[in-house]
C-alpha cells in the first residue's frame, strides 16, 4: 500500500480488504458503502460464527475486520477471542453501541481488539484507522 499522511484517502495500490461482521442488514449495507467510498473492498458475515468459518475454510486474509458486539450464534467478544486463537493478524475494530458501559467495552478490547468505535460508523471515524494500517 502507498504510505499516507493523516487526511483524505488517495488512490491506493492495493485495495483495502475488509470483513464486516454484523447481524443487522442495515449496518452491513452502510458499512459496505463506507468501505467502498474509501477505496476498499468488503465481504460480509451475518454473525461471529460465519466470520470464524470464513477464516477456517477460505484461509482468508483481511486487512481490517469490523466486528459488531451483539450478534446471535456467536457474539463479537467470543468471535474476536476465537480469531486471535486462530492467529488471525488482521486489525480488528470493535463496533459498540453507546449504551455499552465501560466494563463491556473493556471486555471487548481485552478479547483482542485493536480499536473500538461507537456506532454509528462514519468515514471520518474509519479513515484514521486506515491511515494507521497504511503506515504500519
Amino acid at each position, binding site marked *: 500500500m502507498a504510505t499516507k499522511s493523516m487526511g483524505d484517502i488517495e488512490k491506493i495500490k492495493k485495495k483495502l480488504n475488509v470483513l464486516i461482521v454484523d447481524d*443487522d442488514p*442495515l449496518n452491513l449495507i452502510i458499512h459496505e*458503502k463506507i468501505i467502498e467510498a474509501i477505496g476498499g473492498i468488503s465481504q460480509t458475515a451475518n454473525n461471529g460464527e460465519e466470520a470464524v468459518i470464513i477464516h477456517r475454510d477460505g484461509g482468508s486474509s483481511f486487512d481490517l475486520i469490523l466486528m459488531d458486539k451483539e450478534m446471535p450464534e456467536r457474539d463479537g467478544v467470543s468471535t474476536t477471542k476465537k480469531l486471535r486463537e486462530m492467529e488471525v493478524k488482521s486489525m480488528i475494530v470493535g463496533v459498540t453501541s453507546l449504551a455499552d458501559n465501560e466494563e463491556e467495552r473493556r471486555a471487548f478490547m481485552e478479547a483482542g481488539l485493536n480499536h473500538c468505535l461507537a456506532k454509528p460508523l462514519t468515514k471520518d471515524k474509519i479513515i484514521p484507522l486506515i491511515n494507521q494500517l497504511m503506515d504500519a
Partner: protein
Amino acid sequence: MDALVAQLQMQYRNYTVSLYQQGFLDDQFTELKKLQDDASPDFVAEVLSLFFEDCVKLIGNMARALDQTGTVDFSQVGASVHQLKGSSSSVGAKRVKGLCITFKEYCEANNYEGCVRCLQQVDIEFKALQTKLQDMFNLEKQIIQAGGKVPQVDIN
C-alpha cells in the same frame, strides 16, 4: 425551465433544512447522503426503505410482546427497542432514536403504561418521518425531471 429548476431547488433546500431543524434528522443522515454517488444514486432511498421495513417489523414485535395476557416480558420488548434504537441511529432518524431511549428506560423499569405510550409515539414518529422523506425524495425527482441537479444542502 431554469426558473423552475431554481425554484424547486430552493424548495428542496428549505424543506431539507426544516427536517433537521424540527429534529426529524441528524448528522448521520448527512453522512448517508455523502455516501450516495452516481454509481449508487438510490443508496439513501434503499437504506431508508430497509429502515422503514425494520420499523414495521420491530414495532409489531413490541406490540405483540406488550399484548401478552399475564406477565409482559419487558426484556423481549427491550430487545426490539434496542434494535430500533440502533437502526434509527444508523440512518439519522433523530426523533425515533430519542423515543427509543425513553422507551428503553420504561422497559428497564417494567413500566407498562410508559411502554405503551412510547410504542404509540414511535409508531406516529416513524410514519411522520416516512411521509416527510417521501416528500423530500419527490422534490428530488421533480428537480431531476426538470433538468436540474439535486443541490447539496449545508445544514450548518
